């Protein structure tokens, strides 16, 4: 096996036992990026010199006999919305091209403290608004399982980079499904955490009551290792409650026998792809084999959750995009402006892509006087009802399982002409987002055309250890990684 194909745990073991060095790992990943990224388009910035320097520092520490932690010296990628000091961060938007943050995001600082090796920044839909990475100013990322098809979005770059073994792990963000969908489309696990579990300080905001940061890796255990480092209260992010971070690795090895898994009937929508439905049914049978009980539950407001999301999200996006005025960051307009208003209009019209403009205008409309009550306030009330559905259901079950996407990975360009079509891809992931609870995407099998299929394990708020526990047991039982590989 090539070094870049290892997991975090395998890398850590190899580094401790001096089988190979962090520089060896880094060079293997850089070689892979050089071999395949032109086809994949997962990376928007490759930081080769930074990575090798960081790896050399780690190797010096190891040579001196210093203790290393599980993430030390492991090459990773970061979605291009994580502020990285001295390294261009664009949110894959023309309006931030050339922007070099003067400080690291809190989660980046945490990873640096553990001796991270940063291979580069990965592709995303512009300001993470999308389900396919097609709205990125750098073009779409493809899934390594079929280069004609999208990697999913918005964390398509991170997902594809991990699934193709360009890196060992990555960080993504999930606001409406943006870790889970690319996880499913690229065949890797990814965790959307509870809102507030991980600090968002220094991560470019999209929708402030919905955004979450999450680990993406090759195994569920790897995701747990990453989460252990990045979770927890941060004074720089006042939406992170002071809730204890459990010892994830010991929690997730506990036996799942006797736990109850709920199957919410409203998620099995008309038009759900047959192979995806079959895959979830098979997963439920596997849970029964593991000694879990299965119970059908009902979440009656599920069908309204996408509409709730597509009101709240553009409203919050329109507020967050107001700061992009071409004054403090970004390149500004291409030509000179007559006055300040002209400057703003030119900078923003040239800098934002179509999807951003749509969301900004939708949000502005829904928040404007006369419409605020009918749209934004109404959506937040329906949100309360969706939250209540989940609270009731979790009184009867420990976790729930559901499909992630209504379709298999679609072809590049297939849905770009109709924005609503791209929104509908989110129909199964947005309910969890508006409720703010954790959900783990786990690959479950492949379609007859060898496209990956995944499902999500949903848990109550701040119970990441529970969804990871169930996901870990499932992953060990089916051995997806050993059975199936992408074609790239």
């Amino acid at each position, binding site marked *: 096996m090539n070094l870049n194909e290892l997991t975090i745990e395998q890398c850590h073991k190899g580094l401790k036992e001096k089988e190979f060095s962090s520089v060896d790992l880094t060079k293997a990943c850089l070689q892979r990026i050089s071999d395949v990224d032109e086809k994949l388009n997962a990376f928007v910035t490759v930081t080769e010199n930074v990575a090798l320097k960081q790896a050399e520092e780690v190797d010096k520490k190891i040579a001196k006999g210093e203790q290393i932690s599980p993430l030390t010296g492991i090459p990773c990628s970061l979605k291009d919305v994580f502020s990285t000091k001295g390294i261009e961060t664009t949110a894959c938007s023309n309006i931030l091209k050339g922007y070099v943050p003067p400080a690291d995001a809190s989660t980046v600082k945490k990873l640096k403290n553990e001796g991270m090796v940063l291979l580069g920044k990965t592709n995303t839909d512009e300001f993470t608004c999308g389900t396919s990475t097609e709205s990125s100013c750098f073009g779409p990322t493809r899934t390594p399982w079929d280069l004609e098809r999208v990697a999913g979005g918005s964390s398509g770059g991170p997902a594809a980079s991990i699934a193709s073994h360009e890196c060992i792990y990555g960080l993504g963000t999930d606001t409406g499904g943006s870790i889970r969908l690319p996880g499913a489309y690229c065949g890797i696990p990814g965790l959307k955490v509870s809102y507030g579990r991980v600090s968002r300080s220094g991560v470019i905001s999209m929708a402030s009551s919905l955004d979450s940061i999450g680990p993406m890796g090759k195994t569920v255990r790897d995701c747990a290792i990453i989460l252990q480092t990045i979770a927890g209260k941060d004074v720089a992010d006042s*939406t992170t409650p002071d809730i204890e971070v459990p010892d994830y690795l010991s929690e997730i090895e506990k036996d799942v026998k006797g736990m109850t898994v709920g199957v919410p009937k409203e998620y099995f929508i008309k038009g759900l792809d047959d192979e995806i439905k079959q895959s979830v049914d098979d997963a439920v049978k596997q849970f029964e084999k593991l000694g879990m009980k299965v119970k059908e539950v009902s979440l009656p407001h599920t069908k*309204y959750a996408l509409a709730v999301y597509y009101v709240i999200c553009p409203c919050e996006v329109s507020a967050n995009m107001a700061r992009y005025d071409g004054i403090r960051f970004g390149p500004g307009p291409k030509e000179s402006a007559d006055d300040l208003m002209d400057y703003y209009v030119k900078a923003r019209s040239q800098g934002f892509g179509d999807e951003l403009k749509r969301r900004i205008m939708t949000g502005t409309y829904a928040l404007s006087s006369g419409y605020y009550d009918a749209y934004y306030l109404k959506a937040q009330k329906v949100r309360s009802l969706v939250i209540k559905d989940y609270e009731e259901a979790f009184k009867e079950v420990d976790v729930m399982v559901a499909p992630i996407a209504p379709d298999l990975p679609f072809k590049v360009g297939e849905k770009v002409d109709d924005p609503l079509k791209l929104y509908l891809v989110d129909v199964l992931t947005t309910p969890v987002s508006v409720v703010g609870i954790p959900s783990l995407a786990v690959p479950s099998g492949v379609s007859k055309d060898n496209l990956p299929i995944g499902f999500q394990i949903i848990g109550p708020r701040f119970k990441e250890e529970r969804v990871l526990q169930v996901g870990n047991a499932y992953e060990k039982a089916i051995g997806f990684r050993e059975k199936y590989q992408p074609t790239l």
Partner: protein
Amino acid sequence: MAKISEDEVKHLAKLCRLQFDDNEIKKFSRELTSILGYVSQLEEVDTDGVDPTFQVTGLTNVMRKDEVKEVCKRDELLATSPLEISRDQIKVPPVFE
């Protein structure tokens, strides 16, 4: 059901500090009408007596001590602007003619 007319798109564009050509105005009129049409199904839901949830943490007024902490140097912050810096200030185009 809401229809977003071309005039409304022009008005929204002004509020959002965006400008469009005629084709874009037509396109956005269609697309915004379609999106707002989809979300208007929320009208069906009975929300009498339901409180809105603006954020799920339940936290309010998270306080910290009013201590000065340097996160970055002034020069580093000013360096990210594309405009001329003069006496530690960003020189912007005139507000009035």
